[in-house]
């Protein structure tokens, strides 16, 4: 699944059908829309209440052709509907040129399409899981509709799950439109979801290359896989789902030449091979990385000498695992030795192109290993990490 990056801050949402379809009755439309919302309220603490007049969170309209949002509908078939993510208002528009139907193999099933669109209204992007409701393609009427586990995980990543008592209470109201699944008992992420967004706030916790050469950015409970130009489709994802046992809000990370990836948070560190934890972790930084302080800002492996550099505040430490002690007595040294690099970094990365990148407050600096200074370039550094790294 993929989260767009915004979500509603309230649990009780209202909606209004401002413009009904021409070929389907109002009461049938009301009922199908209600059932479509219940797909999501069955597995989250969200509630949806229809209003006939006044201000609402989600406005629903059946429109034809150009209808004022710059994204005209295209007649029967093709595009069936579209919806806006929470940050853009959450409204859902349906192409009134379609033959909207209820419980029929003819036409286009309103309930299924509405449930999909409301997924967008709540903050979900398209999923690449074919069986998911949030897959972008209409598969035809499915009389035994079931929400896919991918959809459940997605929406619960944003809003959490219903508690057990509520879940049992809802079973009485289960209809064929319901999910047919018990709400997940999995504990939702403890963050407030705000970190699932890189384009409004491009600050990151850490960034590192895997042993396979994939670059990952971590922020809060989520992570993104980076491509050459931006972020890969299908992200963010939960760190805890991929690196089992690893907490969120990581301070620093790097992959060493032995192929192991090390994550640092507070006074502890974790070691993984790929996404599998290497035995009994976490361990204390003071034991595994003697001489390196807790609560780090960033870490990199310098390709030239294979040594590990740790950054915190206005200082840096060089760690050489082959030496005893691994940190020389001349460390820490002032970060100002790295010409042009600011103190109190957020993250750092020795990238596959040989440059070293430093990140702070959504900006980044490219450090040239040969001149040992920040590169002069047009546009100059620091540059927006959102634009240049995350494709915003």
């Amino acid at each position: 699944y993929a989260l767009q990056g915004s979500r509603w801050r309230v649990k009780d949402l209202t909606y209004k059908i401002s413009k009904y379809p021409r070929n389907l009755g109002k009461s049938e439309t009301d009922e199908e829309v209600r059932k479509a919302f219940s797909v999501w309220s069955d597995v989250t603490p969200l509630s949806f209440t229809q209003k006939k007049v006044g201000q609402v969170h989600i406005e629903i309209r059946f429109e034809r052709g150009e209808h004022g949002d710059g994204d005209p509908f295209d007649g029967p078939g093709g595009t069936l509907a579209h919806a806006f993510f929470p940050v853009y208002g959450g409204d859902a528009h349906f192409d009134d040129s379609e033959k909207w139907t209820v419980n029929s193999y003819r036409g286009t099933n309103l309930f299924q399409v509405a449930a999909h669109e409301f997924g967008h209204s709540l903050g979900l992007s398209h999923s690449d899981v074919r069986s998911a409701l949030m897959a972008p393609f209409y598969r035809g009427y499915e009389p035994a509709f079931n929400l896919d586990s991918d959809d459940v995980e997605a929406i619960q990543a944003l809003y959490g799950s219903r508690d057990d008592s509520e879940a049992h209470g809802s079973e009485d109201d289960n209809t064929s439109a319901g999910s047919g699944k018990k709400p997940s008992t999995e504990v939702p992420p403890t963050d407030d979801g705000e970190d699932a967004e890189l384009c409004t706030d491009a600050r990151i916790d850490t960034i590192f290359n895997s042993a396979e050469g994939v670059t990952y950015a971590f922020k809060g409970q989520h992570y993104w896989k980076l491509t050459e130009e931006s972020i890969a489709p299908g992200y963010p994802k939960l760190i805890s789902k991929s690196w089992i046992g690893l907490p969120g809000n990581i301070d620093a990370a790097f992959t060493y030449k032995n192929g192991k990836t090390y994550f640092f948070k507070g006074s502890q560190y974790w070691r993984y091979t790929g996404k599998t934890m290497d035995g009994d972790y976490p361990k204390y930084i003071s034991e595994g990385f003697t001489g390196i302080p807790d609560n780090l800002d960033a870490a990199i492996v310098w390709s030239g000498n294979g040594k590990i550099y740790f950054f915190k505040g206005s200082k840096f430490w060089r760690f050489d695992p082959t030496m005893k002690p691994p940190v020389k007595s001349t460390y820490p040294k002032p970060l100002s030795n790295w010409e042009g690099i600011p103190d109190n970094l957020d993250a750092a990365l020795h990238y596959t192109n040989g440059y070293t990148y430093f990140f702070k407050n959504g900006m980044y600096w490219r450090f040239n290993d040969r001149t040992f200074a920040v590169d002069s370039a047009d546009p100059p550094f620091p540059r927006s990490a959102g634009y240049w790294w995350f494709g915003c």
Partner: protein
Amino acid sequence: PVRTHAIQSETQAMMYLSQFGYLSPSVRNPNSGHLMTADTMSRAISEFQSFAGLNITGHLDGDTLEMMSLPRCGVRDRVGFATSSRSKR
């Protein structure tokens, strides 16, 4: 599902890939004579095939054209289409 919007030509496929975030939005601008390399088109097709769970061939094969012809949601599959200049990190 009705397939009233069958994708049959490379131009239609380009428009589709642009509309849903696999190619630059400028492809859809009728005022821009958009040129792209075969590699760019192939990469976009591959990304669509990957997302749709098809065999990744990089070519507009029958399965790909059929998938593109399915009724679907109008929301883009990929957001933040990056221009090549962004690779100059």
